[in-house]
């Protein structure tokens, strides 16, 4: 079977973050991790082409998946494989969106990334095969992928036995007793020595790899972003007041302040009286502009990004974060100040 492999700029050896903005390109045959994958696949399947795209380009451009899919088809793909993205968010998002587009178009496809990769949700119904957390686990990951490709090529569906990521979905159910009753039961169990019982696991923490500091804010491009739902008055683009599914961007070039009556917050989760009387209380444009003028900020980025945090699922918020990071990096922004409510 003719396989097309998708990797990011780093896996293809085209560069690191400096090359994250490059657009799609097609390379002949197997490249980077594809070489080992080709070996593991043996003679029956050939990697005929490798498609490469920079992470920022792929993650910040919603049309990128269709563009990449078109390239894969032109290269004669009968099956598409993406990754391994391991834990990398932008790469994972690109891989996930591409297999979702392929799957929707009827092209057999699979992605591979760590089950905790924040991009995984975008794969939709397309199969994702579990990768390790880091590139150190390249070989066992590709062994699973090669076996999964062989199975997928026969037309069979992948299962958990193939390393397909089984999402643990938390499904709401009506049960016999109301929550207050169950809380009393749980307290009594804990008092009786059972320290493990809980209906939701406790103690989980998100760990985020710290970005390196900027050398000097005085020479950096700094962006303002917020989840406080600051929009032009009247909310012309209909940002949700709760449970955001999207984010927006607004120009602030040449603007010294966010004036009351011109901007407002449509957030549903907190009292907005104070913010609407002075929207700088949610997005500190006036102060940032002054500091820019005085030289404490190299340059303020020309637009701000905004969504609403109120009731927004963690999965959606993670996706916005990946997309914002990609957008800002593409624009050369080195630091962002996020105001959170």
């Amino acid at each position, binding site marked *: 079977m003719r396989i097309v492999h998708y990797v990011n700029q780093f896996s293809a050896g085209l560069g690191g973050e400096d090359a994250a903005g490059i657009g799609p390109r097609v390379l002949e045959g197997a490249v980077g991790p594809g070489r080992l994958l080709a070996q593991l696949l043996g003679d029956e399947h050939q990697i005929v082409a490798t498609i490469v795209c920079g992470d920022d380009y792929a993650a910040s451009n919603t049309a990128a998946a269709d563009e990449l899919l078109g390239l894969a088809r032109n290269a004669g793909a009968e099956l598409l494989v993406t990754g391994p993205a391991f834990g990398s968010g932008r790469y994972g998002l690109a891989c996930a969106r591409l297999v979702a587009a392929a799957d929707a178009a009827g092209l057999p496809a699979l992605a591979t990334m760590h089950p905790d990769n924040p991009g995984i949700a975008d794969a939709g119904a397309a199969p994702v095969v579990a990768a390790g957390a880091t590139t150190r686990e390249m070989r066992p990951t590709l062994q699973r992928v090669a076996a999964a490709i062989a199975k997928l090529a026969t037309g069979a569906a992948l299962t958990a036995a193939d390393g397909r990521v089984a999402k643990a*979905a938390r499904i*709401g159910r009506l049960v*016999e007793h109301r929550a207050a009753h169950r809380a009393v039961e749980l307290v009594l169990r804990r008092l009786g020595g059972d320290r493990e019982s809980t209906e939701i696991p406790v*103690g*989980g923490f998100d760990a985020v790899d710290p970005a390196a500091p900027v050398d000097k804010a005085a020479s950096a491009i700094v962006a303002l972003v917020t989840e406080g739902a600051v929009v032009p008055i009247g909310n012309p683009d209909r940002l949700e007041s709760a449970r955001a599914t999207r984010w927006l961007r607004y120009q602030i070039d040449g603007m010294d302040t966010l004036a009351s009556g011109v901007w407002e917050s449509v957030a*549903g989760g907190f009292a907005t009286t104070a913010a609407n009387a002075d929207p700088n209380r949610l997005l500190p444009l006036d102060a940032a502009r002054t500091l820019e003028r005085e030289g404490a900020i190299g340059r303020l980025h020309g637009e701000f990004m905004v969504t609403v945090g109120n009731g927004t699922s963690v*999965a*959606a918020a993670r996706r916005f974060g990946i997309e914002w990071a990609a957008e800002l990096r593409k624009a050369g922004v080195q630091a962002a100040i996020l105001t959170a409510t």
Partner: protein
Amino acid sequence: MSALRRVVHEVRSVEIGVATHYEQHQLVVGRDQVEGLFADPALAAVRAHVAVPGDRVRIIAPLDVVEPRSKGPGGGTFPGWVASVNRKRGGDTHVLRGAAVLAAGHLPRNQEGLIDMSGPAAQLSPFGRTNNVVIEFDRADGASWQEAEVAVRRGLLRLAVHLADAAVDAAPDAIEELAQPHRPGTPTGGLPRVGVITNLQTQGAFKDVFVYGRSMAGSLPTLFDPAEIEDGAVVSGQYGHPALRNPTYLHCNHPVIAELRARDGQDLRFAGVVLCPEPVEQGDKELVSTHAAWLCRAAGFDAAIVTKEGAGNADNDLMLKVDALEADGLTAVALYAEMSGADGTGPPLVAGPRRGAVVSTGNYDQRVKLPAVERALGGTRLGIADAEATSAVEVPTAAILSALSPLGAGRLTCRSEQQLGGVA
């Protein structure tokens, strides 16, 4: 302290009529009397409707919900609003069980929710199972929304007292004795002393809960007489997250207090109630949490169940209290709703405790399909679905009033199920 007796009258049907009247489980609501009770310069008009279980009716944009309660002619319930805070406590309180009065209609800052009286959503809201008197209202020209909101709230409370007054002379269906909490230092018979901490949202206009008629913002946590909560000392003026809302009805019928009372003397001692604000500033959140844990310890609690109102930062209030209690050697359980996305695959909690245990009241994001209904009250459009109010719609559980009740009124929970690939 005097004990309280609930004198229970079971309401099995409700209708609008000429004069308010209660007899043989049937409640008639006098139309003109309702108008008089809502007379206020901030309101141009009110209209009373009935919505009862099984009706194909949808209530759009519900505001507060109140259970009719009165201590007899002259009221005595809802102190700070329609009774003096310094009236005689305890004694008999007449309760129209199975009935509720609620307001519905546009109010800025009210996050739009709904109640269905039939279909799947009726199972999820406590108010899909009550015989409801629904008040629609028009704001008066020149009145502010804040003034209109206060007028509607006061009107609802007056109506609740007025309806319960109609049953004062009727033979009760049940009389329920509510003992005071177990006193610290008295013998426990080897049973653990378990109490409840209830956080009240305190974020200013349209986001506030009142204790004796005043906001709890700026207060420290306090031990509180549960008999006074029964009598409506805690009144909601809070219009955030519909599914995560605690209407006045649920404070009066506080589910955790009820469950603790039910087990009192069997496998625990009901140790008491602590009310606590949900401050907007992190330092204050930490202060009230540490103070609440200290208070529970000083009052001799062995364990506490912790409840909240709202989402996001309210989860931080829960987390801080559970952690403070457990660090102090008390056993803690918190009630959380999950926010794991429509398909349930996202992380369930934004800010969960590091210790203790958590009860799940369901997934905020899970979609519910609602069939079309015959009529709607409170509005003609359902904004969240951008649809006619009566049409078949799909909404997140988050939109169904008190469906994820942080006070534990509902039977929803979530269970982890392995599944392959996309379920979205």
